[in-house]
């Protein structure tokens, strides 16, 4: 199986400059500096690389949207990995920090950026030490700082820690947080490419996305684009968790069947239970029932199945689990993490929570399910950022595929009795 990001991931001391360079690290810089910045952007466009943080926006296109001739520009690497089920960036930051730095240098050169920040979630404090050390090593080698490798190109990269707010993974909330404020999302437009950090043109990319760029520069866009499906190119890191025998992060070529990921890579369902449902892309995407396990793991196939690839967190749920309880746990998460700026999200998450909690206490009635759908309808796509939509996903999909599990709770409760 083709491994790009995880090729040497478990090699001893890969996080050090010495070992990383022995494995061919930083070779892409010279190749890149022999080209014009726009040629790098064109290559990333041609590679078909799409953002790996959740939205799947074409990376090269994002870079090309930067407001013309406005400087300084900034790069923000989104390392606020907080989507429930997702832990791939943590593994990259922990074991291969130089790969991210190399990717950030390439992106900065291509976009003529001289300052980059790595916004890490506050709980990754341990990783910030590793990252800072790697940045120091890159400085000592002359890969960062002034006049990098005699090209006249300057770049500084800094780590910046958040402090425990899921919403800061949303790009405009991340910018507000990095500017020293509350992590509330901004109205868009203007998009960050035009007015981002400090109201300057800003590129925001996920850790995994930036880590792919050295491969594209080294091996060529064509080679990367030869992997995967027609519209979903390359490989994807998948965090497989839940009721599987071998939970872990796996790198798969786009389009691999979900069955293969769950049963071959992750060893199948634990304790000889059966698969009941799976959430393919982190808690913010709709869950699917076991009958759809053959769906291809790529943006289009998952969209056709009514869900999304998201951040690549495959959460596996077996037949012993209670879907209503699991759904409540996710609602509870979004209720806790709603920043409170938009009413449909602030109030809606709380209402959903109250209703599902009542259902679980056998205090609900059949109309409650319709009420849940009604509230969801009033939350989706009615807010500044997608947090409300994310909360709607598990609720609506659990009702769609497992309505009978909700109805179980009303069996002994006559209509109008509560």
């Amino acid at each position: 199986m083709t491994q790009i990001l995880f090729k040497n991931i478990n090699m001893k001391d890969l996080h050090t400059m010495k070992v990383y360079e022995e494995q061919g690290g930083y070779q892409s810089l010279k190749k890149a500096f022999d080209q014009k910045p726009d040629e790098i952007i064109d290559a990333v466009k041609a590679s078909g690389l799409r953002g790996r943080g959740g939205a799947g926006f074409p990376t090269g296109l994002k870079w090309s949207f930067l407001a013309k001739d406005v400087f300084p520009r900034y790069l923000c690497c989104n390392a606020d990995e907080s989507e429930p089920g997702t832990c791939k960036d943590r593994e990259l930051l922990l074991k291969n920090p130089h790969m991210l730095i190399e990717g950030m240098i390439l992106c900065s050169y291509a976009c003529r950026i001289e300052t980059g920040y790595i916004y890490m979630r506050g709980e990754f404090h341990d990783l910030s030490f590793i990252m800072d050390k790697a940045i120091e090593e890159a400085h000592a080698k002359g890969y960062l700082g002034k006049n990098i490798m005699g090209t006249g190109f300057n770049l500084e990269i800094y780590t910046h820690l958040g402090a425990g707010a899921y919403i800061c993974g949303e790009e405009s909330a991340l910018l507000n947080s990095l500017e020293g404020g509350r992590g509330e999302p901004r109205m868009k437009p203007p998009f960050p490419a035009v007015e981002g950090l400090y109201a300057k043109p800003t590129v925001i990319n996920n850790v995994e996305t930036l880590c792919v760029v050295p491969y594209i520069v080294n091996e060529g866009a064509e080679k990367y684009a030869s992997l995967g499906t027609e519209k979903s190119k390359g490989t994807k890191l998948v965090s497989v968790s839940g009721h599987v025998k071998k939970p872990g992060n796996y790198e798969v070529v786009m389009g691999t069947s979900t069955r293969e990921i769950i049963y071959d890579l992750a060893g199948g369902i634990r304790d000889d239970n059966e698969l009941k449902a799976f959430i393919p892309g982190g808690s913010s995407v709709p869950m699917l029932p076991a009958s759809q396990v053959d769906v291809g793991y790529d943006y289009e196939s998952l969209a056709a199945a009514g869900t999304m690839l998201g951040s690549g967190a495959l959460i596996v749920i077996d037949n012993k689990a209670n879907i209503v309880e699991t759904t409540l746990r996710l609602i509870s998460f979004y209720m806790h993490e709603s920043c409170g700026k938009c009413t449909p999200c602030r109030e809606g998450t709380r209402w959903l929570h109250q209703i599902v909690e009542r259902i679980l206490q056998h205090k609900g009635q059949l109309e409650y399910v319709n009420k849940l759908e009604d509230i969801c309808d009033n939350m989706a796509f009615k807010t500044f950022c997608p947090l409300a939509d994310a909360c709607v996903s598990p609720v609506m999909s659990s009702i769609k595929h497992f309505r009978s599990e909700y109805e179980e709770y009303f069996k002994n409760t006559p209509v109008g009795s509560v």
Partner: protein
Amino acid sequence: MSGFTFSEKQEEEIAGILAKYPFKKSAMLPLLTLVQRAERVISPEAMVAISQKLDCSPAYVQSVLSFYTMYHTEKVGRYMILFCINISCQLNGCDKLLEYTADKLDIEVGGTTADEKFTLHREECLADCTNAPMMRINDTYYGDLTEQRIDQILDSLD
């Protein structure tokens, strides 16, 4: 208001932090983190000291810190236990383990032991789902938890 001063070493650290950003205010979270880690609490006096470093009002500092869960206006224990209760951990039985931990420490979830050694908090996803159930104590992640392993971990901390 007086009563909070940064140490010489902290002043040096702060100078390094401020140098990272073109605008002082960006140092808000780093400074709050610095105080939280050193003091285990952010007092009103510390908010004033931070506001002076960043040329903003103490009220603004308070408004920002109240947004984030990692800052505390009541002192937390020497060991901050963040116990993940989100989906992957839930599917792997974290609820019983959290209860077990609270019973073992003889505190409510959210509370601090009388000797200020441990604070136990329920926490949303900590991005270590493949090692669920898991918890974070100060800067260290502990995965694949069982009752025995929790005993070992907590007993090993002094």
